[in-house]
């Protein structure tokens, strides 16, 4: 079952793990990206995420396909949350599975790295002393 989704709801690591688990996949690696309390020394109040949802889901699925081509036999599932998130809440959950552990670790790392490069999702950091769109520069 393939799972590449953008959602308003709190995330479930179980859901992505289930999506990539099969009797042939002996290694499952997960990544959870959560909201940090500090960003460049500023105290974070909340993050506001938004997405171009249909394109974001399409790009997540493309990441899954590209990883599957580079590490044959791997499966990846990615769910990203949008909306207002507080410190400690999960913004993204990823699971990668493979017959053996090495490919599962590499696939999971590649999935989060590629997500950060190419998927149309944005976040505004709201700190105690103001707000900024991350990645836009000063």
């Amino acid at each position: 079952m393939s799972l590449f989704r953008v959602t308003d709801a709190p995330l479930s690591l179980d859901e992505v793990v289930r999506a990539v688990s099969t009797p042939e996949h002996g290694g499952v690696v997960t990544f959870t990206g959560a909201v940090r309390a500090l960003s460049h020394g500023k105290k974070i109040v909340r993050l506001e995420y938004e997405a171009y949802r249909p394109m974001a889901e399409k790009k997540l699925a493309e990441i899954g396909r590209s990883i599957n081509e580079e590490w044959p036999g791997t499966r990846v599932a990615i769910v990203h949350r949008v909306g207002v998130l507080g410190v400690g809440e999960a913004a993204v959950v990823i699971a990668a599975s493979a017959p053996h552990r090495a490919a599962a670790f590499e696939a999971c790392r590649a999935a989060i790295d590629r997500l950060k490069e190419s998927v149309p999702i944005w976040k505004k950091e709201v700190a105690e002393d103001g707000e900024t769109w991350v990645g836009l520069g000063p």
Partner: protein
Amino acid sequence: VKIRLLYFAVVRERLRRDGELLELPEGTTVDELLDELERRHSGFAGLRAACKVAVNQDFASGEAELRDGDEVALIPPVAGG
């Protein structure tokens, strides 16, 4: 050609809208659309260099020609994760 523009994140805030419908001459390219947006919106000039453009949910080059019914999104620097 009639296109639907979508604005997100910092673009939406600076242009004070989440999109608009535009009618453009036949053969208008992505770069020419961006020129037009600079003329229409004073807040756009400072963002143009930071933005990529997606046409029908795929990244497009500046030379790409727009077609009737295209969905065109301005994509400021992404920050997922």
